[in-house]
């Protein structure tokens, strides 16, 4: 149960973050694009940064899923049973880590991207500067992925 909850949280929270970001940025791009149509193509980069967050989530979910196996708490050796319980908790933690990191990263990139679009609509030299801020925001999602890979390393439910 814990492992599966972790997988569920990994993918669902990441997707919520990405979706929220795309919502914010997309609304601004569409709004700004009414008066300044030139911003439309360039600002799709912000959308791609948001989407990357969702991709981190699904990669982690698949990595965690590969470690799930089956065990029998009544007949397996004590070692196998304890290792399986430990692996379950680790997977929950890994999923939670990547999920929460990605949801905040997604929201952050979304709000910054929204600002970038509106600033670009006013003054096209501002876009590149704001993009740097967005890259910093995107890096924190990557931190979440790295930490959760470290948590999941070597743990396996079941003995096969």
């Amino acid at each position, binding site marked *: *149960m814990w492992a599966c*909850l972790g997988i569920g949280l990994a993918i669902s929270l990441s997707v919520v973050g990405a979706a929220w970001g795309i919502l914010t940025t997309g609304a601004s791009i569409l709004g700004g694009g009414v008066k300044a149509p030139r911003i439309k193509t360039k600002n799709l980069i912000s959308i791609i940064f948001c989407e990357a967050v969702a991709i981190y989530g699904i990669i982690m979910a698949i990595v965690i899923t590969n470690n799930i196996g089956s065990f029998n708490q*009544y*007949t*397996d*050796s*004590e*070692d196998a*049973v*304890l290792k399986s319980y430990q692996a379950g908790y680790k997977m929950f933690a890994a999923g939670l880590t990547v999920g929460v990191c990605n949801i905040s990263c997604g929201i952050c990139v979304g709000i910054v991207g929204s600002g970038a679009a509106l600033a670009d609509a006013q003054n096209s030299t501002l876009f590149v500067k704001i993009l740097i801020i967005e890259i910093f925001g995107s890096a924190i999602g990557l931190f979440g992925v790295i930490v959760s890979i470290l948590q999941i390393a070597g743990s396996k439910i079941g003995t096969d």
Partner: protein
Amino acid sequence: MIPNVKMSQMLIFGVLFTFFMLVNTDKTPALIWSPNRPLSGLSPSYAGETIQADHFLDNYLTPLTTDPAQSLIVFVQNKLSVEDFTKHADVYNPNSDGGAFRNVKAAMDENFSVHLPEIASPTSAVQKLSTSFTGERVTVDSPTDLENMDLKPGTQYLIIISLKPISGKDEFSEFKMNDEDIGKCLHHLSRRGLQYSAVYTAEASQVSEEAVHSGRQLLAAEDAADNTTYNGTFYNVQNVLMYLQYVNLTITRKAIGAGKPRLETYQWNFKTPNITVEQCNDTINGSLDCVATPHGDYNALRINMTFDNSNGTANLRFTIKQTDNMGSQWKSTRGTVDLTPSSEGVTLTGMDVDYNIESIRGFCFHCARLYTKPSVRNFTSNATVYPSDVEKITLTMTRFQIEVSFNTSKGLGGRDFTNTSIPFSTDVWECVEFFTVPIWMGIISTLFLILILFYGLTMIANITTMDRFDDPKAKTITVTVNE
């Protein structure tokens, strides 16, 4: 004191209590009413109480016949139950007229009446009354016979009317017909000016017995390999009560070459057990001092069970100790198991085995599937296992129940098992806790999803109309519509 209680309320009352009881085909309700004699003197029926036939005779039927001017009419059907009232008397309609029991309902509502929801074999009480009745006895098969009879008011009659049997094909109309017969009879009696009390009852309720599922079903044991209905055997062995169905021993050996791991399985049943129980005391250096003859003063019991069948012999030994000096709690300690196969197989000698058998005074221990503790599942020691390619050994006991008692001689409680027919205590210490792990898994996952749902519902509830650009002072927009 139940005069004039509404029939529908009593029926619902009766239905609720019947629902919680295993229905016995001999228990039927009885409705008693009388237009002139108050029935408040009859003792009330308590909730869930089954009135026995003698009690019914003494407390209800006989008082109705004490007055020499008062007759007693008994309508007897073959089948009547509270469920029949629920199904056919239109009880859920506040303005109902009784459905198939219209005349009976009218009689119960308008006259003094009493409803007895459960009587065990009322017809035997009626028969007893009829043999001891001093007035005139009349047995009638149909209301037309009653019509033709000459009944003198002032004489005490006992009229037993057998209503048409309910066959079950169309119960509603059959009950309705019988009800109309009852109505006709009552009409005849009142026309002749007879003073009477009426009883409406039946021989049996004949409702199919529902299997009452009490308790929870955990760990449904597979009976695939067992075609006979052997359910386990109970033994009382020197003050230890034990019940066991099977002992299963499964040994997994390494696969030869590229095949699957080899399994050796043994299953012993408990039909002819070979158990010895020794009463032991702890010695100073921690070992046990055991004697085979019981002497009543012990703080540990060493149990030695031998299982024998054509596949092999196993010998299981473990000790049950009290955890304090009062005998208020006892636990099993690590034991050993030996296995001698009758043909080629794995031999075990002195292999450790440890179960979580524990309970408290006055309770027995029960486990549907008893597995060994994880700490003894590691079989890397070659000294006790021959040959050495064994990967896993599992020893489980199916449907195991045990009760021991300490300090019976000191009078500190504990049950005395010297009487060999004493059963287990009704209090059970189960090996599976009430909230099992799967239940918690379900609860947590469901709770999590419900939280998400509530978050979403909150967001939907916070949707508001965009009014940022509304200006109350500006002209309202009008849109002309061309028809």
